[in-house]
């Protein structure tokens, strides 16, 4: 359980990091290393070059600007879940970040790493899709912005190019909507078996559910959310039936059931967060 040999760079500036990514074949960016290092030790990931961005402090900021919260790629989960701006504007995101792994994992793992790794059972890709975030991808040729919904292709696959670095994610500050989050994992700290973010309008029944853990990527479905629990349950079940689940029939049924339970809890939390204010 040892990685293959690799070259290691620790650039001092963003420009230097992007130059290395442009020049080196089969380079991988390392930040917290919480997904990449195990994969390398299993030799499932075999990068020839690692570009360590931990020195790029400019990627570690959280700032609100013009109706958008910009979260640097290097922000650790533990910072995210406690950051006043996140807690104030995105309580569901803060709640989800608190469910990632364990404390030691959260102090190392970064939002950028989680988004680029794109595990279908991970919280932050789903949170970014749920909040209609935009990913900022930077390369030596410039910057491009991709909607979260378009960024995630499927299991561990995204739109990022080999020479690009995810530098930040931008989330529009919510207005007139509330969010709730819930997930179910086998043991606390495990990847979720299934989970959901639910978005409800403060007026009317308009809403959306972002599912994760069921299909190969987070899925956001807009729907009118019935105020009646039984009807909502049927809505959730119908929505989930449209997603591709795991191949095994029992497992697929189980994941959908857990996702529906999570969505109902997330819905209740979204409603309750309104009452709390």
């Amino acid at each position: 359980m040892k990685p293959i040999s690799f070259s290691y760079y620790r650039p001092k500036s963003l420009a230097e990091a992007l130059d290395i990514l442009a020049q080196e074949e089969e380079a991988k960016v390392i930040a917290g290393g919480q997904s990449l290092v195990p994969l390398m030790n299993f030799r499932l990931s075999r990068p020839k070059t690692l570009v360590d961005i931990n020195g790029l402090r400019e990627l570690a900021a959280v700032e609100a600007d013009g109706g958008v919260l910009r979260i640097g790629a290097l922000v650790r989960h533990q910072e995210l879940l406690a950051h006043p701006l996140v807690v104030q504007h995105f309580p569901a995101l803060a709640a989800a970040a608190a469910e990632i792994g364990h404390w030691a994992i959260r102090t190392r793992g970064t939002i950028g790493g989680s988004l680029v790794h794109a595990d279908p059972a991970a919280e932050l890709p789903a949170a970014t899709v749920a909040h209609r975030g935009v990913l900022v991808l930077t390369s030596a040729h410039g910057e491009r912005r991709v909607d979260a919904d378009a960024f995630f292709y499927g299991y561990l696959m995204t739109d990022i190019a080999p020479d690009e670095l995810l530098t930040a994610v931008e989330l529009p500050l919510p207005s007139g909507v509330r969010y709730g989050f819930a997930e179910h994992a086998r043991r606390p700290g495990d990847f979720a078996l299934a989970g959901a973010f639910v978005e409800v309008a403060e007026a009317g029944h308009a809403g959306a559910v972002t599912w994760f853990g069921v299909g190969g990527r987070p899925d956001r479905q807009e729907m009118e959310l019935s105020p009646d629990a039984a009807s909502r349950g049927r809505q959730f079940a119908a929505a989930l039936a449209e997603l591709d689940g795991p191949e095994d029939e029992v497992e697929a049924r189980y994941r959908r059931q857990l996702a529906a339970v999570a969505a109902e809890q997330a819905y209740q939390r979204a409603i309750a967060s309104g009452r709390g204010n």
Partner: protein
Amino acid sequence: MMQGPLKPQFTGARVTRLEDARLLRGRGRYLDDIDVPGTLHVAFVRSNRPAARIVSIDVEEALAVPGVYTVWTAEDCGITMYTERYDVGQPVLAKDEVRFVGEAVAAVFAEDRYVAEDAAERVRVVYHPLPPVLGFDEALSDEGRRVHAHRANLFHHTEHQTEGFAEAFASAPHRAQATFVTHRQTGVPMEPRGCMAQLDAATGRLTVYVSHQSPHQFRSQLTELLQMPENQIRVIVPEVGGAFGIKAMLYPEYLVVADAARRLGRPVKWVSDRTESLLADAHARDNRHEVEVAFDEEGRILAVRDHVFGDTGAYPFLGFPGAVGEAGWATSMLTGPYKIPHVSITVDCVFSNKAPEGAYRGVGGPVGAQVQEGIVDLVARHLGKDAADVRRVNFIRDEDFPYQTATGNVYDPGSYAESMEQALALIDYERFRREQAELRRQGRYLGIGICTFVEPSAGAESEAGSTPYEAASIRIEPTGTVTAALGLGPSGQGHETTMAQLIADQLGVDVKDVVVMHGDTDSAPFGGGTGGSRSGTIGGGAALRASQEMRQRLMKLAAHLLEAAEEDVELVDGHAQVKGVPARAYSVRDLARIAYTDVARLPEGMQPGLEVVVRYQPPLSTTYSNGTHVALVEVDTQTGFVRVLDYVVVNDCGRLINPMIVEGQIHGGVAQGIGSAFLEELRYDDSGQLVTTSLMDYLLPAATDVPRMRVTHIETPSANVGGFKGMGEGSLIAAPPALAGAVSDALAPFGVFVTEIPVHPQQILEWVQGRVHSA
């Protein structure tokens, strides 16, 4: 137990573990901490096929990797671990054929493990696949392929039936049947297995470091397989970070490492990684019990029929084919704490193309207890009776001891019924039953499971081998401190503390003045090691006997010096004095100095020095500890998750040496029981690949899964010296049935009766949503 002049100060007390000062500070020195310059590191090429002929192995490309010293295959190291009884040998590196995924095929020796793994990837093995044999039925079928071409897959078959069984069974008013299945699990010690060997250039002796439970047994096996004289091999077992039975086995990797060290003339080291551990550590629990039970109106069990199937995997471990050990224990203890007069037992153990099975804490105990408690719960459900009441009807009572079971065991006295009554009182059983009914009306499903276990301990034979005694040497140094050495192989149980407690009390010294050593065959006396819950009882007995003998020496010397009769001398607080006259005293320190350096003052006939070696063999071939576990769980019928809300244990392991250490063992066993019941499963897919090769897939209980538990003690002493009974395994024997029973109880309204562990949440939802019916 402590008759004589001494009042025990340490025995029975919650003495803080002497080991913890180093262990908790991270200063323990484990196998991987042994770092010798010039060491070659090994990476094994392992089979990725469950069954295949080896067509060719090409090592050229691997040898060309810079830093690679050499690569071995079966042609280079032809040692075979052969079991005559079944006529099956396991080559330490696969020869001609591979028989399970993870079997070592080649060994790469390199400057470091990174290079070794790089080269291991470049060893080209061409396989001709064979159809794998993956289950009992397949192994036993006439059409099934033979795992070992020269012999049948069925390698162990026994039948035992009590006189009059057929009539008792046929004439019983009621009968019920169930099939109990336990899936593959393993011990998962925090420290993986490992081995390091080096030849002493000066003497030609081979030193082998190994993370193991039985240093002397390991040396004997090396002696035989390497064909070296015993005194040319020194085995050193450093700190061991958990063992749980799996480290009592002899593994092929160790022989490759030891053979390479002697033939390559370089130190050689291999430490298992977690994937290798899950692939090739001893697996366990792959059992099926087809059970029928006959009983009367009161719930009295009259007869039990059990047909056991055990899958031992591809090879028998030397001296301990796991399936045989498991089926043997499970069926021998099938009647547990109950007076069941008749049994009919059939055992069939087979080879398959899965990893070899060996010992894991409790061996067949958890499986047997699952059956034993399962049938009682089954009877209760059939008759509509309370599960505790059916137990009360069947318990062996105090007046029945010594009790001979229908399976041929003779139980020494225990506290079966009393332990259950105390446990039920602790959990407030009657109140729970009322609350349970109320909560069910609210849609909440809580349940209680009970397991009253009987643990055969300190047996003459176990996975630690057939050494029915243990050895202790005790030396009082010239300055009066005490050094003891035992043949045990602890892996975290705290022997350095418990043995020191026993010795300190006998010698009247402080527990901190006693150093207990183990694990080095050059200094420890030949002993059986640790396994089968033998260390506290047999090892403790040896420590006690040796220190008693030493005490006699001290008393005799003191009496001579004090010019008093021996019976008038007592040992108190590090001094030998004339009874009640502290003024007339010699300190142990003075006595030691005189014994070594002022030998003219010794009584006639007394040898200089203070050193004894004693071997203790208990009078009973087995002593049976017991206790009751009661688990209270809630099943979430929306998610299928089970939460353990409360857990009580009433334990009886005879006289306690250190209650804190006993409770620690119980906490750990219950945690493993939670893993067994709900989380842990080594899963092979239909093609014979192990799909649980990391701890992301093989789920262990985490701190959040383990409830606070309440443990109390009953002390029914054994006839062994000290009155001790072993207790290392009872908690893992009792926990899985208690937890599974609690799920059955919680989901009784859905007709659920759990017969298969681990219980997965998917399964629970299939049951409560009525798609699948349990037994």
